[in-house]
C-alpha cells in the first residue's frame, strides 16, 4: 500500500525547492518549539517563570512555515505568543529560556519576559503585549526598508482577535495604499482568550477583511507546515519583487490554554482532541517518514538531541544570574 502510494503521488513539497536538510530543519524547529514549551510549562509550575506565559503548542507549523522561507535581512513582528517564532528564527533555546527565567543572559536580558523577546540582529522585532499594537510597527518596518531601497520584507504575525481593533484597518489601508512589502499572517486559532471568533467577529471569512483594501489575500491551513511555506513563498516574492502586501489567514489551533492561568472552560475536550489528531508535528513527521527523508530511528535521535538541548537551556537559565540592580535605569533613553 505504502509503496504504491509513493509511486502514485508526489511528496507534498515536490513543487518547492526544499533540500532534505531544509525539510529536516523545519521538522526539528517545530519539535524544538514543542519540547521547549512543554518544559517551560513545567518550570512555570515550579515558579521559575513568572507573569503571563502564552504557549504556542499546536501552532508550530504556522510560525515555522512562515519563517523558514525568509532571508536573514527580513524582519519579523509578533504579539506576546512569541516563543515559537523566536526559536524558528534561530534564537537560542538557552537565551529564550533564560528570558523566561528573568535572567541577564536572556534574549532581552531579563527585562522583557515571556511576552517581549527581541533580537534585532536576527530581525526579530518582538514580542508585543497589546492586542493590535504591533501591526503598525511592522508596517513601519516595511516602510523603512522600501524607503531605503532595500528588498527586505517584513512579516507580521497577529491573533485573529486583533483584527477587530480599529488600528488593524488603518494599517491594512496604508499598507496597500503605499504598497508596502509586508505579509500579515493572521493566526486564526479560533479564540481570543475565552471568546470564540464567531462571538467577536461579524462575517465568516476573516481573510476577506483585506478585500476592502483590494489586498492579495487568502486562507491557509496553518496546521500544515508545507502549505504555510508554499503560500508564504508566493507572498514573499510579491513583497520583494513587486513591493505589494499580502494578508494570509492561517487556520490553526492552540492545544493549551490562552496563558498558563486559563482554566479553558470555553471549549470542549472533544474539540481539542479533534485538532490534536491533526497535530502539525506528527503529520509532518509521518510525511517525512513516508518519503524516506527521516527514519523512525532518526526521529528518535532528534528527540534525544532536542531533549538534551532543552535540558541544557533550563540548566543554563537556572544557573544564570539575575540582572544587576545597577541596570534599573539603563536604556529608558537611548
Amino acid at each position, binding site marked *: 500500500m505504502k509503496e504504491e502510494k509513493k509511486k502514485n503521488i508526489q511528496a507534498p513539497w515536490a513543487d518547492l525547492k526544499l533540500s532534505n536538510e531544509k525539510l529536516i530543519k523545519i521538522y526539528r524547529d517545530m519539535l524544538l518549539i514543542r519540547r521547549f514549551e512543554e518544559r517551560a510549562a513545567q518550570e512555570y509550575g515550579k515558579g521559575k517563570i*513568572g*507573569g*503571563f506565559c502564552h504557549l504556542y503548542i499546536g501552532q508550530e507549523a504556522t510560525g515555522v512555515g512562515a519563517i523558514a522561507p525568509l532571508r536573514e535581512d527580513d524582519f519579523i513582528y509578533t504579539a506576546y505568543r512569541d516563543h515559537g517564532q523566536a526559536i524558528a528564527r534561530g534564537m537560542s533555546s538557552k537565551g529564550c529560556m533564560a528570558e523566561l527565567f*528573568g*535572567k*541577564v543572559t536572556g534574549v*532581552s536580558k*531579563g*527585562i*522583557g*519576559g*515571556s*511576552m*517581549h523577546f527581541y533580537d534585532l540582529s536576527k530581525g526579530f522585532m518582538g514580542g*508585543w*503585549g*497589546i*492586542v*493590535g*499594537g504591533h501591526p503598525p510597527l511592522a508596517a513601519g518596518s516595511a516602510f523603512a526598508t522600501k524607503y531605503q531601497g532595500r528588498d527586505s520584507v517584513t512579516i507580521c504575525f497577529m491573533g485573529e*482577535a*486583533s483584527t*477587530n*481593533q*480599529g488600528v488593524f484597518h488603518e494599517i491594512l489601508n496604508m499598507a496597500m495604499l503605499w504598497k508596502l512589502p509586508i505579509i500579515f499572517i493572521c493566526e486564526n486559532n479560533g479564540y*481570543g*482568550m*475565552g*471568546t470564540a471568533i464567531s*462571538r*467577536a*467577529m461579524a462575517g465568516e471569512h476573516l481573510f476577506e477583511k483585506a478585500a476592502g483594501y483590494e489586498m492579495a489575500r487568502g486562507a491557509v491551513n496553518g496546521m500544515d507546515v508545507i502549505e504555510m511555506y508554499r503560500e508564504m513563498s508566493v507572498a514573499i516574492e510579491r513583497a520583494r519583487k513587486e513591493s505589494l502586501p499580502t494578508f494570509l489567514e492561517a487556520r490553526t489551533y492552540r492545544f493549551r490554554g490562552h496563558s498558563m492561568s486559563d482554566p479553558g472552560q*470555553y471549549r470542549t475536550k472533544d474539540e481539542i482532541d479533534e485538532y490534536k489528531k491533526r497535530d502539525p508535528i506528527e503529520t509532518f513527521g509521518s510525511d517525512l517518514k513516508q518519503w524516506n527523508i527521516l527514519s523512525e530511528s532518526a526521529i528518535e535521535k532528534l528527540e534525544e538531541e532536542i531533549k538534551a538541548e532543552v535540558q541544557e537551556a533550563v540548566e543554563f537559565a537556572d544557573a544564570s544570574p*539575575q*540582572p544587576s*540592580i545597577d*541596570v*534599573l*535605569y539603563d536604556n*529608558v533613553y537611548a
Partner: protein
Amino acid sequence: MAVLQIREAINQAIDEEMERDSGVFIMGEEVAQYNGAYKVTQGLWKKYGDKRVIDTPITEAGFAGIGIGAAMTGIGVRPIVEMMTWNFAILAFDQIINHAAKASYMSAGQFKVPIVFRGPNGPAHMLGAQHSQALESMMAHVPGLIVMTPSTPYDAKGMLKAAIRDDNPVIFMESEMMYGQKGEVPEGEYLIPIGKGDIKREGSDVTIIAWTKMVAVALKAAEELQKEGINAEVLDPRTLRPLDEALIIESVKKTNRCVIIEDSWPFASVGTEIAHRIHTIAFDYLDAPVEKINSADIPMPYAENLEHEALPNSEKVIAAVKKVLYR
C-alpha cells in the same frame, strides 16, 4: 458582618445597581461567559443574560465609545465598562479624554455622561512593561473625569455604587493584586460619596497618604514605626479627583509631616499635586518638606529582583518617614 473579597464586593455593587436600575448594564472583554478575566463579574451573565452583561470584541476604543454614546443619549442608560486592565484602556483614551470628559462642557450642560470605566490598574507581579502601569495620574489630569481608587472591600462597594449613580464619567481603578483581599462589608445599602477620603489609621506624628494597593504598604510601615514609638496616621483619599483636600490639610495640620506613596511614576503624579497643595495651603504647619515614594521612573522590568527594586515598599516608606522626622 459578611467578610468579602474585594472582587466580591465590587460584584455586589454591580449586581445591586443592576437590580435597582434596569438602565445599568456592564460590557467589556470576557465579562459575560468567562465571568471576567479576574472573576469580578462572576455569575452576572447567568443572572442577567446577554442583554445586560455583554462580551465585546477586543476593541477598547470602540466599546468605550459605544458606552459613552449610550450614556449621552439621556434616556436612562448607565453603562459600566470593564477594562480588562487599564493598560488596555490606553487605546480608549481618545474616547474617554476627547469625548466623555468634554461632552457636558462643550454642550453647555445639555449632555450628561453617566458612565463608569472600571478595571485593575497598576503593576501586579512580573508582567513586564506593557502590563504594569499605574495610570491614575494621567486620568486625574483631565477635567471632566472623576477618579476613584478603592483600597478595601467596604470602600470598593460603597464607592462603586456612588460612581454608578453619578452623572459624570467615573474612572474606577482597582488592583489585580487586591481582588482576593478580604474585609467586612455590612448587609444593606450604603454609599460612599465621591470626594470623601478616609483615615485608615489614626496617628499624631506623621501623615502617610496612600490609595489602593499602597494603603496596605502604608499600614505595614505604620505598624513597624509604632514599635519605634512613631505614631503614623494613614490617610486614603479614596477619590483622587475631586480630592478631599480638607481632610488632607486637617491631618497635616495635626501631624506637621507628610509622606505620600504611589505605585505610579513620580513625574507630575497625583502625589506631586497633593504635595503642592500641602506646601501652599499648610506651609506654616510643616516641620519638613513633604516626601514622596513612587515606583522607579522607568518602564517596569520583568526580572523579579528588578521589579522588586522598582516598587514602593514599607522599608522605603519607613525611611521617608524618618527623613521627615529628622531621625
